[in-house]
């Protein structure tokens, strides 16, 4: 019985991921017949393995177009259904990528992004032999007559779950794996070269399980680079990494693109990274490609992106909001960034931090310095930026004036340079009794190479009812360990844990978890049964909760899992899995719930959804603690922030105060969101510690208006010199 259940579950798991259809109106795109002469730059380098490709003869080379270099990727009207699938995952997809481009493939869940990229190395249709129609040309050669192994020499592929891609024990073995398989004599030097490109050469003798997550991702890229591919596909590099590692990966990709001319394709949800690094973006929707546009134009199609649940960069959103407000107030649109790709001198919204800074600051400067009649459009951003810089004192005056007023978003900061900054204001009403109290908790781990390492160093804190706490800190600051210690999963070396009814020492984990819930970073680690409803009710039935049936129903409803109740949780999408893991945790109604990185692995739309789910969670438990890298989440959700640095608490207080101390943020290795950075650079970071696109636009409007009011008085001063 168990066996057959297991087998059927395993069968489902082995099947390719079934993707859910996405609504939306696909538009047929213009499909140009490109092609070109074969210029297989790999064939010269690896002549000794010519036996691979005897099938692909020059007769197969498309000769429709002789003039230009071949396109790196040319997909023409591909339709594809996975074997056993009931839906066309690709429905007439076409895509032409120029050699040397850096393209982001965007689109909602189930729009066929990964499937599209699996055309490039022939996994489709050679490995997944479903219903296939259409043509794929890679570097000017037809993929239909070339094997996966052969195509993979030109197309490197890094999976989203890159950990499962690493198959060898040591770093160097891993990097050499592909060249060794292809029987290339210089496999060692190829592997080393790839490691060097990824900055991992110093780790070549390490075992894979000794590496950090970020290093493993770089290694997966090195493994793909070892064959010196012309095209590199990276599936969602950001989703599994923390912000600093994600940026490191993009810096690497950008260097490979720049210095070696590798064509790079990333599947990506995070518009900030697309704006900073990619040159083109391709929007997939319901198995078709809607458009392929230069990134600035692509990210300016706000409505279209919003309809598909893709978040444009926050700075773009802020600029769009501001434009709305400006239009409302009748002062006309701000001068955007000149659009390089448009002959009509049209402008667009800024997409990167730098662009936004230039745009908004020149707008401020124009409002403050220009005569009222000149309108808001500055003539030259560079000179007006200078003007803005000169007008700083004025700005500060504005700030000061405001401080005497009522709308004060961030009171003065304590100037102490204590390592622990207690930012709680003294006049705060004392919170209720502590639900959970940590007293001088210390924790260290024994490592294979470096002896013992201290993770937590005398942490004391207490959690009270109604708090939404975010634990933040750089890599290795001890966030996860703090949560595990608080949940009683790891026993600290020193210090004590107190629950509501006394010390927690000696309390078995099973009993402790009734009061302190813990939700894993990876939801899949929590799944122990074969369907969602059983997962949620497991603890309830185990612990003989009287109204288990009712509570299960409540949980399924609160976390929107009713329709998924009978599905295997392992086969759900990332966001659904996350909701399920929260429901499992909340079902026991613990007083405190600890969540480790709840927004990891989520795309932006699902992340928004999670924020709502967290609100739902608050009605079932008294206090929620989240360990996270995601400053956006902290900004939007938390009521208290604990900053960890080197295993100690560096700050503890409400988010606006913690965020306002940018020096502390930098010291603790916290990455500001693009919007925070922008607010800082515009010079009102202190007043707007937790900016959102809306609040930033509002603040800008206020400044502009007050600038304009001031100007109404100013002409007299301006006239003075003339009069003299």
């Amino acid at each position, binding site marked *: 019985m168990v066996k057959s259940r297991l087998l059927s579950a395993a069968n489902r798991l082995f099947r390719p991921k079934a993707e859910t259809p996405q609504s939306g109106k696909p538009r047929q795109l213009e499909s140009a017949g490109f092609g070109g002469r074969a210029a297989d730059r790999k064939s010269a380098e690896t002549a000794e393995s010519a036996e691979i490709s005897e099938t692909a003869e020059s007769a197969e080379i498309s000769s429709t177009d002789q003039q230009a270099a071949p396109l790196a990727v040319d997909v023409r009207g591909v339709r594809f259904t996975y074997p056993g699938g009931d839906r066309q995952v690709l429905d007439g997809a076409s895509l032409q990528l120029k050699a040397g481009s850096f393209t982001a493939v965007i689109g909602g869940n189930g729009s066929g992004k990964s499937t599209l990229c699996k055309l490039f190395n022939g996994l489709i249709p050679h490995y997944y032999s479903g219903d296939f129609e259409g043509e794929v040309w890679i570097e000017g050669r037809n993929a239909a007559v070339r094997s996966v192994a052969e195509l993979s020499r030109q197309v490197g592929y890094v999976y989203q779950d890159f950990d*499962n891609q690493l198959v060898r024990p040591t770093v160097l073995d891993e990097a050499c794996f592909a060249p060794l398989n292809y029987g290339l004599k210089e496999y060692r030097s190829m592997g080393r070269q790839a490691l060097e490109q990824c900055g991992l050469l110093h780790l070549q003798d390490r075992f894979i399980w000794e590496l950090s997550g970020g290093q493993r991702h770089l290694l997966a890229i090195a493994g793909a680079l070892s064959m010196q591919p012309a095209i590199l596909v990276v599936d969602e590099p950001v989703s599994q990494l923390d912000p600093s590692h994600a940026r490191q990966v993009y810096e690497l990709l950008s260097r490979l693109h720049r210095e070696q001319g590798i064509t790079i394709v990333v599947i990506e949800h995070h518009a900030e990274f697309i704006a900073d690094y990619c040159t083109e973006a391709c929007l997939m929707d319901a198995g078709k490609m809607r458009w392929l546009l230069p990134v600035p134009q692509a990210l300016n199609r706000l409505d279209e992106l919003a309809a598909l649940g893709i978040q444009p960069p926050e700075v773009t959103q802020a600029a769009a909001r501001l434009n709305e407000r400006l239009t409302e107030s009748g002062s006309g649109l701000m001068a955007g960034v000149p659009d390089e790709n448009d002959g009509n001198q049209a402008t667009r919204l800024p997409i990167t931090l730098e662009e936004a800074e230039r745009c908004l600051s020149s707008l401020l400067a124009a409002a403050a310095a220009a005569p009222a009649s000149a309108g808001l459009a500055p003539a030259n951003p560079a000179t007006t930026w200078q003007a803005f810089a000169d007008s700083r004192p004025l700005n500060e005056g504005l700030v000061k004036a405001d401080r005497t007023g009522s709308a004060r978003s961030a009171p003065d900061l304590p100037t102490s340079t204590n390592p622990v900054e207690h930012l709680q204001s003294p006049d705060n009403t004392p919170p209720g009794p502590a639900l959970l109290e940590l007293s001088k908790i210390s924790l260290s781990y024994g490592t294979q190479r470096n002896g013992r390492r201290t993770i937590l160093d005398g942490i004391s804190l207490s959690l009270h009812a109604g708090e939404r706490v975010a634990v933040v800190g750089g890599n290795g600051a001890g966030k996860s360990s703090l949560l595990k210690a608080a949940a009683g999963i790891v026993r600290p070396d020193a210090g004590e844990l107190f629950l509501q009814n006394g010390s927690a020492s000696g309390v078995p984990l099973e009993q402790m978890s009734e009061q302190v819930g813990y939700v894993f970073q990876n939801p899949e*680690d929590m799944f122990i049964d074969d369907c969602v409803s059983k997962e949620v009710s497991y603890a309830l039935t185990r612990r003989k909760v009287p109204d288990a049936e009712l509570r299960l129903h409540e949980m399924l409803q609160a976390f929107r899992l009713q329709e998924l109740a009978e599905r295997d949780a392992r086969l759900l999408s990332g966001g659904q899995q996350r909701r399920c893991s929260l429901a499992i945790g909340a079902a026991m109604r613990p007083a405190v719930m600890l969540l480790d990185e709840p927004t990891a692995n989520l795309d932006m739309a699902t992340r928004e959804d999670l924020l709502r789910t967290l609100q739902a969670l608050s009605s079932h438990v008294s206090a929620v603690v989240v360990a996270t890298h995601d400053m956006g989440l902290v900004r939007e959700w938390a009521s208290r922030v604990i900053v960890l640095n080197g295993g100690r608490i560096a700050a503890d207080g409400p988010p606006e105060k913690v965020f306002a101390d940018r020096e502390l943020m930098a010291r603790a290795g916290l990455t500001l969101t693009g919007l925070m950075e922008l607010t800082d650079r515009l010079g009102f970071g202190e007043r707007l510690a937790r900016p959102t696109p809306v609040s930033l636009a509002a603040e800008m409007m206020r400044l502009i208006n007050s600038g304009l009011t001031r100007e109404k008085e100013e002409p007299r001063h301006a006239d003075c010199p003339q009069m003299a």
Partner: protein
Amino acid sequence: MQIARRWLERLSLESFQTQLMGMVYGSGHAVLSRLDPRCMLIWYLFFAVAPWFISSLTVLAGMFLLLAVATVLSRAAPFILFILCLGLIGQVGWLFLLSLFFGGDAESALPLLKLTLKLSVVSLASITVFSGMDPERISDGLLALGMPAAFSFSLSYGYRILPVLLEEFRSVLLSYRLRGKAPAPGRFRYIRLAVYYLKLLVLSFYPLMLATAKRSRTTVEALEVRGFSYGMKNPASRRLKLEHLRTTWRDGVFLGGTAAYVSLLFWLG
């Protein structure tokens, strides 16, 4: 009880994992790791099969001595030896008790001792080979001896994936504990606790298998993409993989010495 509990706490899955990985891959300095894996495998094959056909106590005892020395040279982890002793004593001790129950006496211990010796020789030979050489060398040795590439690769991959599996096993076990109910204090608490934990250990394998099934989708695809199946059919790739294997005088001395010793034993027996 306190001491036992503290000892049990130290015997966590985590320390087991560290020890195991240290043993498996940390054999670089062992004397035996310098030998050619092909020689080691042939040597192992002999000691894994021959004892079953030998009934002379002298020969078996002599073999046992040789393998005890070899085990020391291979720097096997203490806990593996501990498990081996536990297994042997448990198995044979149980049989001896049974024989006493059915009217046997001290006489019946002798054939059991023989069985013990046979089992120990085979076990020690396995421990010697598998802890004296790292999995990469064993896998290369198997490939060189004509095993299919898929088989030898699975062996090395199996070892590589061990830490991942153990990690996952730990989190599944933790999941069960966080949502389960431990036996309440009362009579036979420790026995009930032991039953509870053993049950969890067994239950944890099911989610582990399902998670592994899911993970292997990417792995199999990635192997394809990285030319693994192409390499299996490619003689050049096989040649390159085995290039580093060389037999030296050490291997000759090792095999010759063993052969001479074993012939001496047979002559004595």
